[in-house]
């Protein structure tokens, strides 16, 4: 939904362009949606994409390791986040799509299309607004 509306607004010509930037369509399988609930085991605050690792309890009692792809951490760092912000052991819910490569090495992979805390709060932001951090000292913003 975002895709087509934004494309129209920005006057882009080819739908493939949106996918090309993220390349997520190349990495992830649109026919394999996942809904994961688990505890954070590690956060890789790296570029080009951060990865949040979580331990997902399986119905049979075993634990599956998943890693979920996010965006650049730099945006969050500018907003004041640091390596301790998302505590190990936090319970999160991930909606996304599994990678096309289903090998699960070193862990199963998915894109973090939407990641929230277990209670529904969005990660790293308040409950309202677009959530995008400040983009600069725009005098018009200060005047608002």
């Amino acid at each position: 939904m975002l895709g087509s509306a934004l494309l129209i607004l920005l006057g882009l010509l080819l739908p493939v362009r949106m996918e090309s930037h993220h390349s997520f369509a190349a990495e992830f399988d649109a026919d394999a949606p996942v809904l994961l609930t688990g505890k954070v085991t590690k956060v890789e605050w790296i570029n080009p994409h951060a990865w949040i690792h979580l331990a997902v309890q399986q119905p049979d009692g075993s634990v599956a390791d998943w890693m979920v792809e996010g965006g650049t951490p730099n945006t969050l760092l500018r907003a004041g986040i640091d390596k301790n912000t998302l505590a190990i052991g936090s319970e999160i819910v991930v909606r996304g799509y599994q990678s096309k490569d289903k090998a699960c090495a070193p862990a199963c992979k998915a894109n973090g299309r939407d990641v929230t805390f277990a209670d529904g709060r969005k990660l790293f932001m308040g409950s309202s607004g677009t959530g995008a951090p400040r983009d600069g000292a725009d005098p018009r913003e200060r005047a608002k």
Partner: protein
Amino acid sequence: MIRAAALLLVLLLARVTSAEEWSPPRLAFGDPDLQGTWTNATITPLERPDEIEALVVPPEEGHRIEKLVADLYAAVDDVPAGKLEAGEDVGGYNTFWMDPGKRLAVVRGEIRTSIITDPPDGELPYSLRGRAQLVKRFWRLRKADDPETRLLGERCLVGFGSSGGPPMLPVLYNNNYQIVQSPGFVTILVEMNHNARIIRLGAQHRQGPIRPWLGDSVGRFEGQTLVVETTHFHPAQSFRVSLTHAVYMSTDAKVVERFTRLSAKEILYEFSVEDLENYRQIWKGEMPLLAAEGRIFEYACHEGNYSLTNILAGERAKD
């Protein structure tokens, strides 16, 4: 006598503090001071959207567009409960990772609907050849046979699109540039992909077989304005694609950038691209560089590039 002196003083002070008279401070070695951390994040795209005719829109229209974009971004995070639908676009991630800017670019007091100012319709004036090259490169991108066929940003060679340029264009995030000046040099640190453009002042272009990433840049000051000329681009840098622009440029294109500091918090960034192989004319653009809050953080890309592995492995899984 005293009253005259007081009046003179008032007039002098008025002159000094008048906005029209503002000029950037000079560094100890004489160069105008352009230093700082700057951002070109803006929702104004490179090319004007089809629905919008004019380069300049009045404030009410500007607010309407900004609200529309803000609502679209809010919708990205408004994911219905439960599992996502199979067969849909896999999408990306939450907007808290993104930082595309929230405002349209304001240049010379005008709210702009495209970065491109010339041609007046705000569209890249591709020649037939240029457009054919663009389409050919997009076509090649549908597959992932080899790492060399993927985007430079995916390969972590330079940043996405024309983030480092030149011309330096905004993308979805990390639209930050730090300018450091020293005698004989202006250095621009482009956050993505930790690229330092070391611009040699008063120098000649280097010729010969070595073609650097981000081209070979030489600069000079014309009054307060830094003028940078870049050519001799790396052969792989022709195809620059991001969410907000898609540019195909010859490696022998000549890019001229002009940086003029307008205030403590703003630099006017103007550029022109001369590439008569791929375009019908020289095209030009303008946008502000605004003082950024926060600093540049390390963008070590290659070291953590699971993505390229996943792209290639994903395609192999399909094969």
